[in-house]
């Protein structure tokens, strides 16, 4: 015990020097407080509330991890969708125009050729591909059947275009260029359903933000009330320490260290459980054959991110208990 104390004394010495140098730096204080103190003058540990707080924080971080990993999975999935679909458009020159005219095979062929030439050399286009008649037949065969001879029927022309990552303005320019090259071209982007999807994703993201906010509020409230209870229980001892010249920081340190350790314990338990559940869901989603269950993808970095949950909760706890204790100490003479 002696040598430990000595060690802590040395650490204390340097950190207090550091403290003095950047005395305005409250965040730094916050951590040095929570880490440096080795001894409790207050019997904070033998409190029945502790277990409750531990479980609450474990639950909260469990929920936080689940909501976060949900958001991450959603994000990576929509990214895949977008990258797979967002930059592809299909241009159709249909046989029947909007005003009801039937285009001749020659007109269609000419406009297609025209379009292809324009697009191949267009700076915003990655690749252009005219669908062959066979490909078109494949596409429409589910509706008309395979036996139908299409040779004599005027087929629409379909051009699949992969465009570069561009902004909306450039995309509008591209649209104009296409219209210029072929006045009968219909541009089919995947905008509509994709924007629906993105809208939905946004809602989910807001929801997960909301969950996070609720979690933070509940954690803050729980810690505040726990610290207040402890302050009330140990009011006599706290007053005594005050009378003996203990600074606010000295007293705050005791509470802070206690609550931060408790919160860290709870948060780590909750986070580990949350990550286990997330990973299990990921594996289940991958191994399942059903199309109903989308494949969840949680990357390595995402898991690293999830591991930040306890750190964030520790920071919230440190801050909350700092402020709570300081406030009630300020009321003492």
């Amino acid at each position, binding site marked *: 015990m002696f040598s430990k104390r000595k060690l802590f004394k040395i650490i204390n010495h340097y950190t207090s020097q550091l403290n003095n140098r950047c005395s305005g730096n409250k965040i730094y204080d916050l951590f040095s407080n929570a880490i440096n103190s080795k001894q409790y003058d207050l019997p904070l540990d033998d409190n029945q509330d502790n277990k409750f707080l531990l479980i609450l924080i474990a639950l909260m971080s469990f929920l936080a991890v689940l909501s976060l990993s949900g958001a991450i999975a959603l994000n990576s999935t929509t990214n895949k969708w977008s990258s797979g679909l967002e930059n592809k458009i299909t241009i159709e020159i249909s046989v029947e125009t909007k005003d009801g005219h039937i285009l001749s095979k020659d007109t269609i062929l000419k406009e297609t050729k025209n379009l292809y030439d324009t697009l191949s050399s267009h700076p915003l286009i990655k690749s252009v591909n005219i669908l062959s008649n066979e490909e078109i037949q494949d596409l429409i065969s589910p509706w008309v059947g395979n036996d139908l001879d299409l040779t004599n029927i005027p087929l629409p022309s379909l051009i699949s275009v992969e465009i570069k990552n561009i902004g909306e303005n450039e995309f509008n320019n591209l649209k104009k260029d296409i219209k210029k090259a072929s006045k009968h071209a219909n541009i089919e982007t995947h905008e509509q359903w994709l924007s629906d999807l993105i809208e939905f994703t946004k809602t989910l993201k807001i929801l997960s933000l909301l969950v996070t906010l609720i979690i933070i509020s509940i954690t803050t409230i729980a810690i505040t009330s726990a610290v207040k209870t402890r302050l009330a229980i140990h009011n006599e001892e706290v007053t005594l320490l005050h*009378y003996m010249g203990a600074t606010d920081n000295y007293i705050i340190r005791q509470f802070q260290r206690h609550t931060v350790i408790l919160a860290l314990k709870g948060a780590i338990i909750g986070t580990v459980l949350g990550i286990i559940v997330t990973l299990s869901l990921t594996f289940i989603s991958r191994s399942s054959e059903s199309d109903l269950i989308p494949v969840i993808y949680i990357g390595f970095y995402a898991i690293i991110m999830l591991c930040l949950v306890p750190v964030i909760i520790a920071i919230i706890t440190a801050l909350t208990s700092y402020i709570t204790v300081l406030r009630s100490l300020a009321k003492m003479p």
Partner: protein
Amino acid sequence: MIKFENVYFRYEYNGEDILHNINFTLDPGSYHFLTGPSGSGKTSLTTLMYIGNIPTRGKITMFGTDISKAQRSEIFSLRQRIGVVFQDFRLIPHLSTFDNVALPLRILKRPEDEVNNYVNELLDWVGLGKHKKHLPKSLSGGQQQRVAIARAIIGRPKLLLADEPTGNLDDEIGFRLMGLFEQLNRMGTTIVIATHNQQIIEQFGHPCLTLDKGHIHQEDKRKQRKKIRHVF
């Protein structure tokens, strides 16, 4: 060192003035007894002296600082220079004798080996060498009082306030501790001892502040009574 000017004090809860128009000055290095019948306000006055309460009216100057104008951090450093023996001891129940006595040094962030030396030496001196690891509740009344005294003086305070410090002690150990206070006083500590023990007041013959229903009378008993210093 301490200057009270027209100080009035009441407990909010009560609503009646406990201390009336208190005026006195204690010079640095002085030694005073504070006496008066039970309920006359000795503890209340002592509390004002360690800034445990703020006077309702009047001005208290300590170590040259007007405490009503002092900043929070100044109050802390003022208090760190004051040692207090509380009438009801106020030991921290879950800390051992050693840790209770070590508390002021730890608040002052003294090196831990210094803390060890000081505390062990002092505890041996007050006869608690065998009880270092005991919790307050397994100490006798007198032993608890000695822990309270040891805690008050361990930090070599500039001002020592002792409220009835020998009420639970037998004469031998009582005089021994009074002797310790004399020594501290000779080394420069200003001392105020609230007591109703006339025997001790007579024997040590320091000037005496007498409280009566919240009014103070300052009398120097040194003239009237013979000093018995040969005890030490």
